[in-house]
């Protein structure tokens, strides 16, 4: 149980600035996901919190104690690695009990805690096996059990599900969420998979080029992206953008031939709308369908509006063919506005 | 301990050791070669190179390297590709083929002596087949060609394994997909070898050749065992000067000459087989 505070953390590798002035507070028992494309600095930040990497500047506090000068073992954390890092020379039992043995806990206590966490992760049948005799999913479970057995204040996870196949990943995602919720630990979870982030997180920190662009609840990140990057990153497919010019009266904007109501601003903006927030209507954007992809649950149509790529998610029954012109209207209240100069949201 | 210092602490012993027993003696050799006790001189080199045996031993060393290394290269490439497509018995065959790796040059010389000496197995075989009436002495000054061939065979026998190991390891690093792609695009087995294996094997070829060529110029004990003084080579001359003639300066001078040749060939091989940046697997 611990609050994590990251204060002005920066990291340079030679000339390359991997992290710029990161400030982030993670509440006690919160599930925080660091989300971003590869190379955005999310793993580096996690490794700095863990103590595997030293920050060039700034401080890391865990549970009211400054830890950035401490080795990983003294930070009250434990970690789940992307490639599981299950020790090949030890049995599953000894793997899960490894940290407890290092703490010199008596045998019976080790046994009890190993068996409990193994039961939690449904691997109590595998305790005598070696890592080479396990499947990827089982190794994953061992890695999580090993971290949980430490009963840490904070559990750190670096893309723990990315090596699993899609079905298994979905299953583990739900299971992990449940287990962590019960364990009362603070969790930081790094991933590039936004579905994982959305489904698991209490709060998501979207990272881009070494900065945290937005840290908010999943639904807020989705509905009210704080910056153009977030809008263009989150969602599958992400938001559509169209240029908007003031249309005379205050708060009136001209967007691809349509007049829409928006914020008060004296300069050109960008209008953004999610593909699923578009409906076929009598009046709206004139979109020429270029690619039609029936995805079962719905129909994804990639169109062109005044030369801009524009995607719409429509009902799967809709009859659309390549080359058709659709009239797409944005749902009320779902449009968002960004300032092209700062790339930040305007409201 | 400060983690920044740790790597230096770890490499310190090796560094000290190599400075003391590698760099420092190297300086001493150079000093010895370039001085006659009073100051800088090239006399040692002049003495050594003007000796009647020098051109012969230089020529012998080069001829031997020239004869041995290409054969070994071809042989080891052949063996490596053969092993690569082997399904059953791969481990056993590899074990047999790499046996000479652990055998010293002296032992190799003695092994081939058993074959080539006057009462040896070659004579016994030829006698048994009725090809000759009485055993001939192959390893005498009357048949310099035979001496050369015997030394050559012993060298090929002994030191192909080291190249084989490096090349087998190198071939193992080439992903199978490249061969499959080559096959899909219609390359024959030979073309696949030329266009995929050889270029991708370049780093391994480089290592193998450098190592082998350097060892070829250091050839000594095999020659001593088989040819003795019949076939003077540079390293043997160094030994001669040091022990028989007790001329340390001259020995050092030859040592430096061998070193110069080795470095020159290393640079040539590295340049000829260099891998463009970013073109590695």
């Amino acid at each position, binding site marked *: 149980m611990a609050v994590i505070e990251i204060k002005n953390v920066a990291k340079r590798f030679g000339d390359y600035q991997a992290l710029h002035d990161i400030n982030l507070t993670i509440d006690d028992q919160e599930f925080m996901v660091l989300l971003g494309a590869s190379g955005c600095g999310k793993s580096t930040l996690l490794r700095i919190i863990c103590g595997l990497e030293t920050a060039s500047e700034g401080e890391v506090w865990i549970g009211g104690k400054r830890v950035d000068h401490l080795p990983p073992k003294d930070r009250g954390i434990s970690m789940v690695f992307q490639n599981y*890092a299950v020790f090949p020379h030890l049995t599953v039992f000894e793997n899960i009990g*490894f940290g407890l043995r290092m703490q010199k806990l008596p045998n019976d206590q080790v046994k009890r805690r190993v068996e409990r966490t193994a039961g939690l992760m449904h691997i109590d049948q595998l305790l005598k096996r070696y890592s080479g005799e396990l499947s990827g999913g089982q190794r994953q479970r061992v890695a999580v059990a090993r971290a949980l057995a430490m009963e840490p204040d904070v559990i750190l996870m670096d893309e723990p599900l990315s090596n699993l196949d899609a079905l298994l990943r979905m299953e583990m995602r739900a299971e992990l969420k449940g287990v962590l919720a019960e364990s009362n630990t603070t969790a930081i979870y790094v991933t590039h998979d936004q579905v994982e982030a959305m489904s698991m997180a209490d709060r998501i920190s979207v990272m881009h080029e070494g900065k945290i662009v937005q840290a908010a609840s999943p639904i807020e990140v989705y509905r009210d992206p704080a910056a153009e990057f977030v809008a263009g990153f989150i969602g599958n497919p992400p938001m559509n953008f169209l240029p908007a010019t003031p249309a005379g009266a205050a708060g009136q904007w001209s967007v691809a031939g349509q007049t829409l109501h928006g914020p008060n601003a004296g300069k050109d903006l960008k209008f953004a709308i999610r593909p699923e927030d578009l409906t076929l209507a009598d009046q709206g954007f004139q979109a020429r369908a270029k690619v039609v992809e029936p995805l079962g649950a719905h129909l994804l149509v990639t169109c062109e509006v005044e030369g801009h790529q524009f995607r719409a998610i429509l009902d799967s029954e809709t009859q659309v063919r390549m080359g058709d012109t659709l009239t797409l209207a944005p749902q009320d209240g779902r449009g968002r506005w960004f300032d092209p100069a700062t790339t930040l949201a305007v409201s | 301990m400060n983690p920044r210092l740790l790597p230096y602490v770890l490499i310190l012993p090796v560094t000290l050791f190599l400075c003391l*027993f590698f760099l420092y003696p190297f300086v001493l050799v150079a000093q010895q070669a370039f001085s006659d006790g009073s100051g800088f001189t090239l006399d040692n080199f002049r003495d050594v190179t003007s000796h009647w045996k020098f051109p012969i031993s230089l020529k012998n060393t080069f001829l031997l390297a020239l004869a041995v290394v290409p054969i070994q290269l071809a042989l080891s490439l052949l063996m490596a590709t053969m092993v690569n497509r082997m399904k059953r018995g791969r481990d056993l065959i590899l074990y047999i083929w790499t046996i000479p790796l652990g055998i010293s040059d002296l032992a190799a010389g003695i092994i081939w002596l058993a074959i080539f000496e006057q*009462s040896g197995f070659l004579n016994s075989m030829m006698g048994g087949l009725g090809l000759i009436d009485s055993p001939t002495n192959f390893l005498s000054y009357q048949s310099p060609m035979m001496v050369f061939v015997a030394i050559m065979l012993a060298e090929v026998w002994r030191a192909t394994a080291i190249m084989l*190991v490096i090349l087998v*390891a190198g071939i193992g690093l080439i992903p199978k997909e490249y061969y499959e792609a080559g096959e899909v695009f219609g390359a024959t087995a030979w073309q696949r070898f030329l266009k995929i294996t050889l270029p991708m094997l370049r780093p*391994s070829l480089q290592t193998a050749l450098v190592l082998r060529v350097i060892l070829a110029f250091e050839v000594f004990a095999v020659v001593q065992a088989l040819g003795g003084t019949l076939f003077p080579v540079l390293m043997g001359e160094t030994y001669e000067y040091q022990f028989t003639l007790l001329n340390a300066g001259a020995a050092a001078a030859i040592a430096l000459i061998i070193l110069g040749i080795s470095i020159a060939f290393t640079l040539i091989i590295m340049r000829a087989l260099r891998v463009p940046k970013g073109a590695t697997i």
Partner: protein
Amino acid sequence: MTAETTDVAEVGANTRKAGQYVYIAAVVLLCAWVIVPLYFLLINTLSSPEAVNSYPKPFIPEFDLGSLTFFANFAGILTALKNSILVAALTMVMSIAIGAPAGYALSRFEFRGKELFRLLILLTRAFPLPLLALPLAVMFIRVGIDDTIFGLALVHTTLAIPFAVLITFSLFSGIPIELEEAAWTLGCNRLTAFQKVILPLVLPGITASAIFAFVISWNEVFAAAVLTIENRTLTAFLLQNLDTSPLHLKFAGGFILVVPALIFIFAVRKYLFAMWGIANR
């Protein structure tokens, strides 16, 4: 049409079959190329001195221990054998003790001067190292370790260290750093993580490279001959007496030199390729 295709298929199958036979024949031939000379040495070793010097040679050993007994009773040879083992053992211990930490540092740390250090290691491979025995002979006299087991072991360690560093480097590199990091997050410091996780995993590989160092020393001829006079190693002893010693002594000696090699290659066969594969880079 149908007949034609079967014909073509048949021809194809025949060529493939023929190719298969050529391939198998080549493998067998190459195995024979390695084994037969060794077999000849074995015949000579297991024959009486008289048979060794007779003509024509038998092609089956007579299983007479005469030559080996002669070898064992030859003055000084058992001491030489003991010296060889001692030097090799010392070399083995020193090269791993000094080399392995550097191999670990190379595989785990980025530090200033790393490239320079690698260059120093690689440089030693491009040098005819035994030549350094010449100035070291002088240096050893000065510090009073001339003609000693320890002195020679120092030189052999210089020979073995580059291999020890590169091999251990590749061994450590083969262990994912995450395993070590995981240990750190589970309550280990660097030392305990090394003990509990890294060491058990690399130990077999370290043993293999230790054996490799042993054999490098065991086989080395030139430096041993230069640096020892009274305390000759087996190789130096045999080299010294090449001109004068009888054939059966040479062959028995050669055989004793070869035996550890066979065991060595067998013991490390699993690691040979992995070691060289990465040591290539």
